[in-house]
């Protein structure tokens, strides 16, 4: 997602932001996490370079606690992302334990 916004420019890792999101299922958890990353960029100018995410599941669904490392992004960015759509959104675990995700952004 950040590559779409910043192109080949990579933000310096000079700051850490912690975010926590919830989701009833993996795909909504993923979408909610990406929405937070996008919000931090759009409203606070914080561009994420690296994310370490810890996912826990419980009876109500899933929780993700993410440590985002990054800093000021490219100004102006390469592209504007209007939002993380629900259209075609997927996040599922394959038979071999690998994860597959598809996210479509409105640009």
């Amino acid at each position, binding site marked *: 997602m950040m590559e779409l916004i910043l192109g080949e420019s990579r933000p310096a890792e000079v700051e850490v932001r912690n975010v926590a999101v919830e989701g009833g299922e993996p795909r909504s958890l993923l979408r909610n996490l990406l929405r937070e990353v996008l919000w931090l960029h759009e*409203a606070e100018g914080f561009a994420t370079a690296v994310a370490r995410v810890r996912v826990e599941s419980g009876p109500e669904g899933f929780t993700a606690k993410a440590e985002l490392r990054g800093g000021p992004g490219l100004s102006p960015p390469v592209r*504007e992302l*209007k*939002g993380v*759509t*629900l259209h075609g959104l997927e996040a599922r675990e394959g038979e071999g334990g690998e994860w597959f995700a598809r996210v479509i952004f*409105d*640009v």
Partner: protein
Amino acid sequence: LPELEIKREGPYRWRILRQGRMRVEGLIIADERLMADIRGDEAVKQVANVAELPGIVGRSIGMPDIHWGYGFAIGGVAAFDPEEGGVISPGGVGYDINCGVRLLRSRLHVDDVRPRLRSLMDSLFETVPAGVGKGYRKFVLDQAEVRKILEQGAAWAVDQGMGFPSDLDHIEARGALEGADPDQVSDRALKRGRDQVGTVGSGNHFIEVGFVDQVYDDGAAARLGLDEGTVTVFIHSGSRGLGYQVCDDYLEVMEEAGRRYGIELPDPQLACAPLESPEGKRYLGAMRAAANYAFANRQVMAHRVREVFAGEFGEDAVALKMGLVYDVAHNIAKFERHEVDGRERMVCVHRKGATRAFPPGHPELGPEYRDLGQPVFIPGDMGRYSFVLLGTEGAYRDTFGSTCHGAGRVMSRRKAKKSVGRRDLRAEFREKGIEIRASSFATVAEEVPEAYKDVANVVDVVDRAGIGRKVARLRPLGVLKG
């Protein structure tokens, strides 16, 4: 869903027959050539998907410029009856709530402007912020002021001295939707709105200085002040980050609400809730507030444009006769009265990439255009032309008073950019007599003329199908892009 059955009905109408869970038929307005393109992407299926939503009435409709969107196709129109459990869907309006177009005219002739075009475009570029996420550092508002904009729309800007009271007579809904509720707009959205009023944004948004190069209806063009050679200014933008945030916030609300109300969806981006539900009413309040922000945004930009023209030509906007022809949304949902199945009903019309096109005599039109019909603007690409039309009875009868909104893409942004390669676009446009100013030429590459269908073909179908009436064609002189 098995393959959809499409039946041609006359030269410009294609019915998508009911099947599966479709509650109503689909209808696409197109000729054979446009329909071949439309069949090539997911738009037909998306029209059918919308036909599955609760409370939809009449038909799920596609305009001649319809193409694949997120959930709802772009160029889609659908009306929902609250008395039949009809729904409201943020995806049916889109992220850019009240994205729309306004057109200014002037007493200037194209020959007055050509010699000063470079300087004029430089001044516009310096004065009106454009570009990805670009705010307006000289014009940052506090949240209380943003809330005023959400309630008052374009009138807020006029009260600040940015425009004339008569401008409001030439804006859809006089530039402020009733029922806007700033309390339903999140703090995040308010924050994003603090520095973006009066800004163009990026993507396909623009300010275009142009001129009338062909008139199809002399009487109507004269009434709109669009005689041949007249210099015009198009402003195409919407509610910027504030609107995106409102859409994003409410997609989550609607996803949850839809599950609770037992609404089964063919595509999650169609997330919706009954119009009469608390969630539906909250979204309507927030969406109308964001729409008002967009009206104010275009009003402030129009004021800046007038200031630039005044500086360049040494006369103020009154002397230059820079009146507002009209301002109309193409991403919106509104309650309107329409006849459906032989009965007049109040329905919520979703227009996503479709322009309202009310006919002569409609009570929502101001006195100046009541006998003429509502002006409609169909921008093309930045290298060719755009069109001014009028709303018709045909549109009111067949498409819930709606018509198309643009040319429609034939190339993705990525493909367009790749096709441009290292071409010097600024020089190419200059050779055609068009001055381009942009904060990023990557955006210009994504918006090159060949990335779009020829809008003339789309408008001809609109005219012949009777869902709009051609008045004039405009050609670009200078384009400001994000």
